[in-house]
């Protein structure tokens, strides 16, 4: 019986973390790592169905000090009857591949991508659970997921006279200071939707292009598709022990992780092994949080000794 429970818990854990793609010594903060989950019927909830799909490319700098390291993501914005869902198309693709393989009974190898492609894990549901509200799912590590709700607060846009054409749509310029960055956007009144990439919106037309003044984040619309077959807007329900919090609490936790990620891992219930270049353990740090040990799962993180006291640089899109 005991063995069965252990086995079950192991299975559950395996399901949660299919891929720990980015090891702690890597230069990318792990919030950007792939979170490949099984998204079969029982593991998701359908919130709405979409009739329009907007696709954006995103170029971003995970580390503002390292301006050479530009990372790419592709974002999908699904427009439902009431809910708008914004998420990484690459993460979704990885989930779908895994799900298909799993349903066929195959073991699924992670999709290997170019080194400059990395999907961000977050999901933004605008006008959910009610119109005027926004629900955000965030990840810091694969096993620490956060969920917060906020008012759908649009930036105070300043319209400018400049116009340009993006993908044959004529666009007008607008700018605003929002969440710590000075944003410039180009929107088109030909698409009567007050939405855009990320949390940007509140203009009399779709935002086709958006970037902050330092160009750390650049979204560009690359596809507009009216869906002949409606696509469900889903959220994952089974995997993450989503910690309910406020936006401010989430931002604080995120900062803690990057400032002292070893203690953060320990607090999550992971043992941390400090290893030298040859992989030999030089220091073993025991977690005070026994939540995994209680279910007889040993879950450890290896950290190179060079990174023992290193802060991980990060450059979140929201600076305030």
């Amino acid at each position, binding site marked *: 019986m005991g063995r069965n429970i252990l086995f079950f818990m192991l299975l559950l854990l395996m399901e949660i973390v299919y891929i720990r793609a980015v090891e702690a010594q890597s230069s990318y903060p792990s919030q950007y790592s792939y979170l490949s989950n099984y998204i079969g019927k029982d593991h998701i909830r359908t919130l709405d169905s979409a009739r329009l799909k907007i696709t954006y490319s995103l170029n971003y700098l995970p580390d503002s000090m390292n301006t050479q390291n530009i990372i790419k993501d592709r974002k999908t914005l699904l427009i439902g009857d009431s809910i708008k869902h914004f998420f990484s198309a690459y993460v979704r693709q990885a989930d779908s591949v895994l799900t298909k393989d799993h349903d066929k009974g195959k073991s699924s190898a992670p999709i290997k*991508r170019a*080194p400059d492609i990395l999907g961000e894990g977050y999901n933004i549901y605008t006008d959910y659970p009610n*119109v*005027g509200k926004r629900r955000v799912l965030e990840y810091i590590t694969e096993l620490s997921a956060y969920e917060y709700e906020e008012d759908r607060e649009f930036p105070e846009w300043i*319209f400018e006279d400049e116009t340009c054409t993006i993908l044959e749509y004529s666009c007008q310029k607008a700018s605003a200071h929002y969440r710590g960055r000075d944003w410039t956007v180009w929107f088109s*009144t030909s698409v009567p939707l007050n939405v855009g990439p990320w949390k940007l919106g509140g203009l009399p037309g779709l935002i086709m292009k958006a970037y902050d003044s330092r160009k750390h984040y650049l979204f560009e619309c690359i*596809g507009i*598709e*009216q869906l002949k077959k409606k696509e469900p807007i889903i959220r994952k329900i089974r995997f993450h022990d989503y910690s309910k919090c406020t936006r401010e609490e989430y931002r604080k936790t995120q900062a803690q992780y990057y400032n002292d990620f070893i203690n953060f891992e320990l607090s999550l219930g992971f043992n941390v092994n400090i290893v030298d270049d040859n992989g030999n353990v030089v220091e073993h740090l025991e977690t005070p949080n026994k939540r995994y040990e209680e279910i007889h799962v040993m879950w450890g993180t290896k950290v190179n000794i060079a990174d023992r006291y290193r802060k991980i640089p990060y450059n979140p899109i929201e600076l305030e």
Partner: protein
Amino acid sequence: MYLYYKYIVMIFVFLAPFLGNAQEQILIQGTIIDKSGKPIDGVFVVLSPQNKTTVLSYYLSDAKGHYQLKYSGNVDTLQLVLTSFDYEKAIRIISKTSQTIDFSLESQPISLKEVVIKADPISQKGDTIKYLVSSYANENDRVIGDVLKKLPGIEVLSDGSIQYNGKDINKFYVENLDLLQGRYGIATNNISVKDVAAVEVYENHQPVKVLTETNPTDKAAINLKLKDSAKGALGAMAQLGIGGKPFIWDNELVSLYFAKKKQNINTYKGNNSGNNVEKELTAFYSDGTNSSYNTGQFLSVLSPTLPPINDQRYLFNDVHTASSNFLFLLPDDYELTTNIAYQNDRRTKNSYSNSTYFLPDKEPLVLEEITGISQRINKLDAAIKASSNKEDFYFVNSLNTNALWNTNKGNTFTGDSIAQNLKTDYYNLSNTFNLIKTFMDEKKFQMRSYNGYIQTPQELNIFPGMYEEVMTNNKPYDKLIQYTKYSNFTSNSSASLYFTKNRFSQRYSLGLDVDIQNLNSSLKPFSDNTIINTPDSLKNDLFWQKYKIFFTAYYRYQWHAFDIITELPLSYNFLHIDDRFPQKKRTDNEILFNPFISVLYKLNGYLSIKFSNIFNHDIGSLQNTYTGYILNNYRNFNRNDGQLYGYKSNYSTLTSNYRNVRKALFAQMALVYEIFTSDMIREQYFIGDLQIQSLINKPSITKTYSINGSVSKNIYALRSTVSLSANYNDIFSSQINQGELVDYRYSIYAIKPKIESNLASWGSLSYASVWSKSKTRMENQDFHYPAISSIYNRLSFYLFPIKKVGIGINYEHYYDSALSGEEKNMSFTDLNLKYKFKRIDFLLSWTNILNTKQYTRSSFADTGRFVYIYEIRPSQILLTARFKLF
């Protein structure tokens, strides 16, 4: 319905206070209803200046259909624009006064201009790089081979073989199946551009799935991803072509079929227009299954090496080729392929050569020859292969046979006329078996066996009798017949065990190689059909038997970004040579150890560096052991002193590879150092015009230094692929010339820029150039020939003024510094006209418009300098019609 109020006010009136005329704020409001009178929410009401799209203020109508806009700017004539997803668009011009305007809208769902996400021209997923064919093809491209050469990182060499980032590819797939078994020219020259969706490169491709983890490769494979429309349907193309002058023809018939479980390509191609269609039947895989037709050929009709120009310019042919290739997927993941290729050709070649041999302390020996050759070639290849390639099981058995029947009739004029008739046959039959099976998870067992037999009989007749002082003690005679027959049986068998644990793999192999060779030769002078004199020194009957028992340990260790591989083969070699002329037997035993190591370091996802070193020690070959004279061609004798000359070589390379798919930038560089030591040296001795080559017991060293690199980049803005490659080779060697040791150094460098550009929808451009310089320098000689510089330029334009018409202009220019007068600069011009009439593509090609009659080149080889003049095909016009049969 939740109501929300959010309006954005334009900030604009910085100047207003200065004008002392603050703008009055106006309020525009109203209600929006549909035709049935129900209020509509979610309609954007945008206030703009008249006839402009600039937004001054906007409001999203609420649940009661109400809107209200405030405006205090200085624009006098305004417009209200109402847009929404489900209702018609409404525009109303208004004056700048506060007012109430109600709207009644007709239901009319909006239709957006759809934007299809453009796939990147190149994209990467792990080790797979995908080139979108539509991004690189233009109107002029007919078959996929035309597009392949434009892709950054991919190079198609003049023989048709394909390289990726400087290295030969190891597999060519169509829909992930290897139908052609290395004869991939059949695919690149016949599969239409329109049928291919993408070209995929699989980097570091290990074709044997079982070995993916243990035996990595740095070679890449290419896969053609077909469009759905090209799958499952039989397609056939025909071409008819005639032209002049003289009368020329060029016909083709090709059928293609690609389905899930079956693939088939059949081709017939024939022409006398100089089109080298047999080139596409060449097998390029270097996995040992393709034996070389040259094996065992000792005799030849002397003719200059082929000129380095487009072979269509000098090929006087009359060729028929046919091939048939089948692939079947059988149950249980087995695959069966059959491949047959046949070539029948009559060729003529006319050339002039001027050979200068530098002799120590003497005037150089200069030989002038005018040669005319007519060749008949018959060639047949057939193979059948069954295989299974699974994650835990690999099996292959393939049976190959190759046959060749050639006759060469040559006439050389050196002042006297010398006729040479050569008949060459070649037969090869071989079987390859390979089995790998996984057991107990990480362990693997492999058995392989290769057995092959080759026979090459050759006969060279030379009229009239020559070299009487050497051959017949100055007695005149009619003709000379050199006969050789070479046969070879090879058997290689081995069994291996693989162990893999974490990042450490091991392989241990035990095997036996058997190599039995026989050379039979005789040189007979005839007078009135009777043999005059055949001393044993003009005969060979040599049996060569070599048995090798070997044990090889192979280790691979991956540590961080390092990947280290070492192979330690230890062998015991037993050799028995039975030379019947003179009666001489010898036996040798030797233990050989030829270690190999490679270290790969991946700096990041783009850049990797690899060092490898291979040491090779061998005990000699039959070709260096026979002692009887063989007359290789009418003026070259070859013999050895009967000693067994082994060699040692050490080959080191340092290569670095860079590829950044996002920037479409590919680059590679390689440094090579090879040292070759041997106990023998080559001797060259002239008696009059007769060249005698032999091997002499004296240690010699040959050193080769080379560096090569290439960069290619796709410039999206210019729709162009630009590439540059360069190489430098320096060889230090020595030979004995007329009894004296000569150390010589041969250096060559070449720079090759290339541009392929799809300028616009109405035209494209292609430019290629080669600048090279070579030099031979002999130590302790006062006399040096100046270096030879040569420049080659090719510029082609293709214009498509309207969809049905294409015009191609091609210009080639050759410059050679060693030549003089008109020959220094040579050029060729060609013109093509394409016209599409209904389903027929007409092509009118006018080649060699300037009617250049000959091509001249100069080159250095070893200690000689050679000038060759080749006859070139005259100006000709060919009209072809190409159409799809079904």
